[in-house]
Every structure is written in structure tokens, then in C-alpha cells.
């Protein structure tokens, strides 16, 4: 059995999500190679070769892959896939973009967001935003899989000595082009990768009051989120939404403020390691999932919390 892991990178450094994916590949068993598709991505290949347990690092270094455009990268991966039983990638926005294209080119299913490998062909994955865990068995000879990175601890980044092999294949589908990229330079981490998230709900009463979360977020290095109720009420923009129809987060610490705990919100945050709820309604469903609940008026509790941090 052989597995090809698609490296997540920005042409400069190998992302940790690749290490999580190698861990999932080890759970399947067999040999593991890594594919790095990019441009001027030599440093990434070197880093990938240092990952323990990896046999070969295949590097497709070509301008066509600079921004990992799905139309181009999928052609490359589908070609390289000929020599492998499994193609694995982390379920990052980048890999989620091109992996289904790879699956369609190979005429196989994709198994998305795998959280557990039960055997070489049987996997567990969350459906209905994690309210249900499905066990699925693949009947495809070749399996295309994305891995939910929060489900696997990454393998070490160093200690291995894989060989590096250059691929000359240059696939440019010619139907898409990169225009520009604005990476938001925020002093706050991204919601989906933050180790601490503090979210406000309808109890915040208006958008102005979300400023009460700023000081706490600053002190904890937290990202700020919101419930759908707060978004629907127009307090904050949609991209802050945590929940089934928003972002799914699993930080070390999640603080829910003025959030009742609607199902759709719980679906987006219940895998957090520690959950804190601050709500003045002691019967709010959020307390049923909270490790630490504080029944209090948030307008009193938040300034006090900030001061004590």
C-alpha cells in the first residue's frame, strides 16, 4: 500500500497541517511520499524531506503551480496519483479547493474531513456539522481523502531523510489566472486556527458592544467570533459567524458571551477543549456544554474579566 500526501505550503514553508496529514497516512499504513506543487518551493521540499517516515518527496516546481490554482494542480495530482493507492491532503481551504477535482478526474469519490482511520478502506467523518459521525467504507481502488487536521497530532517536523525527486510535468489548463491576494494583516489570529476564541451573541445587544470583547481578545491572543443570531441582527459581519453555517472551530479555549447555545452554534464550537459560557440566563443550553459557566450580566462580567487577566 502506498500513500501520497499533498503538502500544504506557501512556497516558503511547509505548513503544520501537512504533518497532521502524514499522521493520518501512518494510521492507514504502507509507504508515504509527499508531493510539493509550487513555484520556487525548494525550501518546502527540503522541509518535507525532513519529515520522519517519508520515503520520497516529489517536487513539481513550475510557475503554473505558484498559486496552486485548482485547474492546474488537479491535473498534476491526478497524473502522479497513478502510482498510489491513497491520495491524502489536509482539509484546509486550499486543499479543499482542488482535491474534489482530483477525485473527479480519477472518477472516484472523495472522503472529506476524515477524523479516524478504522482500516485501509473504512473511515469516520463528521456529517451534519459534527452532530453525527458517519463510518464509511470506500469501494474505490484509489482513495482520495481530506483529513480534518484537528483530529490528528502532527508527526515531528525533523528527523527524516527522504530523497527529493523533481517532476517535470507542467500542467497549465489555461482557464484560470491569479489576479491578487490580500492577506489580512490583523493583530488577531484567524478564527479557525486560533488557540483561543471569544464569541458574542445576541446578548451583546449591538455591534458597538462587541468592543467589550476586544480587550480580552488582546490579552488572550484570541480571535473574535459571533453567533448567527448576532450576525442576523446585523451586529457584526457574516465572516465572524461560528456555527454550522459559519466557521467550525476547535480552539483550546472557547468563551461564549451572551450566546444562548442554539444547535447551529454548538455545532460550530463543541469540539473546543475548554468551553466557558457567560450568560445571565441560567437555563441557557450553552451551559450544558460549558466546562465553566458563569451566570452573570455580561456588561458587568466582561470588564471585570478583562481586568483580572
Amino acid at each position: 500500500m502506498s500513500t501520497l500526501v499533498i503538502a500544504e505550503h506557501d512556497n516558503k514553508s511547509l505548513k503544520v497541517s501537512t504533518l497532521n496529514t502524514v499522521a493520518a497516512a501512518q494510521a492507514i499504513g504502507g509507504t508515504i511520499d509527499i508531493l510539493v506543487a509550487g513555484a520556487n518551493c525548494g525550501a518546502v521540499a527540503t522541509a518535507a524531506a525532513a519529515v520522519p517516515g517519508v520515503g520520497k518527496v516529489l517536487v513539481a516546481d513550475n510557475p503554473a503551480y505558484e498559486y496552486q490554482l485548482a485547474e492546474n494542480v488537479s491535473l498534476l495530482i491526478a497524473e502522479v496519483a497513478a502510482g498510489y493507492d491513497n491520495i491524502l491532503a489536509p482539509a484546509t481551504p486550499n486543499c479543499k479547493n482542488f482535491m474534489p477535482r482530483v477525485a473527479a478526474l480519477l472518477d472516484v469519490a472523495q472522503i472529506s474531513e476524515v477524523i479516524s482511520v478504522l482500516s485501509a478502506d473504512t473511515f469516520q467523518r463528521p456529517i451534519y456539522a459534527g452532530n453525527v459521525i458517519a463510518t464509511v467504507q470506500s469501494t474505490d481502488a484509489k482513495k482520495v481523502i481530506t483529513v480534518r487536521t484537528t483530529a490528528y497530532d502532527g508527526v515531528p517536523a525533523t528527523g527524516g531523510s527522504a530523497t527529493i525527486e523533481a517532476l517535470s510535468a507542467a500542467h497549465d489548463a489555461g482557464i484560470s489566472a491569479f489576479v491578487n491576494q490580500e492577506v489580512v494583516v490583523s493583530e488577531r489570529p484567524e478564527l479557525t486556527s486560533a488557540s483561543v476564541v471569544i464569541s458574542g451573541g445576541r446578548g451583546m445587544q449591538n455591534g458597538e458592544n462587541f468592543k467589550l470583547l476586544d480587550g480580552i481578545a488582546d490579552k488572550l491572543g484570541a480571535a473574535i467570533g459571533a453567533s448567527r443570531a448576532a450576525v442576523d441582527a446585523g451586529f457584526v459581519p457574516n465572516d465572524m459567524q461560528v456555527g454550522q453555517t459559519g466557521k467550525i472551530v476547535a480552539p483550546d479555549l472557547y468563551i461564549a458571551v451572551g450566546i444562548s447555545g442554539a444547535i447551529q452554534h454548538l455545532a460550530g464550537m463543541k469540539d473546543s477543549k475548554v468551553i466557558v459560557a457567560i450568560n445571565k440566563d441560567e437555563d441557557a443550553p450553552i451551559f450544558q456544554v460549558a466546562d465553566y459557566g458563569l451566570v452573570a450580566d455580561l456588561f458587568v462580567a466582561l470588564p471585570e474579566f478583562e481586568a483580572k487577566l
Partner: protein
Amino acid sequence: MKVLVAVKRVVDYNVKVRAKADGSDVDLNNVKMAINPFCEIAVEEAVRLKEAGIATEVIAVSVGDKSCQEQIRTALALGADRGIQVETQGNVEPLVVAKLLKAVVDKEKPQLVILGKQSIDGDNNQTGQMLGALANMGQGTFASKVVVAGDRVNVTREIDGGLQTLSLKLPAIVTTDLRLNEPRYASLPNIMKAKKKTLDVFTPEDLGVAVTSHLIRVKVQPPAARQAGIKVKDVQELVDKLKNEAKVIS
């Protein structure tokens, strides 16, 4: 130009879905169904393109049993011009849905196909990309902005930590993310009008697509339950617990 928009009938997002006790499937008896939220955003974007004079016709397509006609009617009430149902039974995998949509694309020749980035039941996030590969079209997934200019479309997409803009040759695929727009509510007169709009029904055989299965659902089960914790009496106790017991802040 013609715009094809795909809609899916799913469990309403406010419903807490449970696995059946025997683990065979999720329990969908007497559960409220609705249009998938991301598909609703897709319909809204298509209708806005029509209102802006860019789209000439908006066609809503759904793959499913007869009940999905309800969601096609919803799309028609929101402003789509006509509907297509591809009649299937039971669970159809994303690859097959993509093949069926590809057949509809071949028939209708839209310049733009807009889909939700994922449905909130299967959470697969695959169909749009698979359709892109099968139809050999460029794709702008997780879109927060769509601008049609001549024979290309510029799609701004949500990526890790920011936004990326791509220029795609038409015809192209767009999959919607939350920020793209805020869907309108259908007015009563439009709901009435939608009942009179054309809705064609095709079978997979009509479209020349074999409904295959690549995955066996072995079982479904509830996730590991989370224990409710404790109530703290004040902010000081909360801070102490987080520092000394949970050790998540320092």
C-alpha cells in the same frame, strides 16, 4: 448570458439531527426541510446578476426525489426563471450529482454555474469542484465577490487569512461562501408566481448518467458526548479555574 444555479433540499439548519438508535441512518422523520443555506446564497447571487442586466436567464436545478421540487419552487420565488429536477432516489454521492449537473450543463450551456460551497447535511464540499473538473471549467470556490467582465469572471475567494481574486475564463463555476450576499425573502406575490413557472423533470437515464455508488455507509452514531461542567460563582473563580485547573490561560 445564462446562469445555472444548483439547489439542494436539506434538513433545516435549526434542527438537531440525531442518529437512529440502530445506527443505520440519521432520523429524518417529520423533520423540517429547507433549501441549503449556501444554495440560497447562490440563488440570490444569480438573481442579482439578472437584476444587474448581466444574466438573461436563471435556471434552478436540483437533484433528488419529488420533494426537492419544493426547493426549486423556493428558488423560483426568489427570482429564478425556470426549474429543472433530476429525479433520483435515496442518497446520491457528490460525484454522481456532479455528473448529472454536467449533463444539464451540456444541455443548457450556461456561462456561469453557481453552487453552494457545501450542503449542511453531508458536509462534503465537493460537488462544485467535481463539476469543474468534469466540464473542464475554471472554478472560483468559497466566493465572497463575483464580477463578470466580458468573457471572464473575477471571483474573490476566502482563503486562509485573507482574500484571493482569480480571473476565470467563461463558462465557469462559482461556489458561494457566507459573505457573498444576504439572501432576500420571497414575497407572497412572487411565491404565487413561482407556482406557474416551468419545471422540467429528467431522469438520470434521460441524461445518460449511471447512478453509481463508491461509498458504503456502514453506520452513523452520535459523537462522543460532552459532559456539562460546573457553574462558577464569580469572575474571580472563573479566572482561577482557567489558570489553575484547565491551564488554558497564564
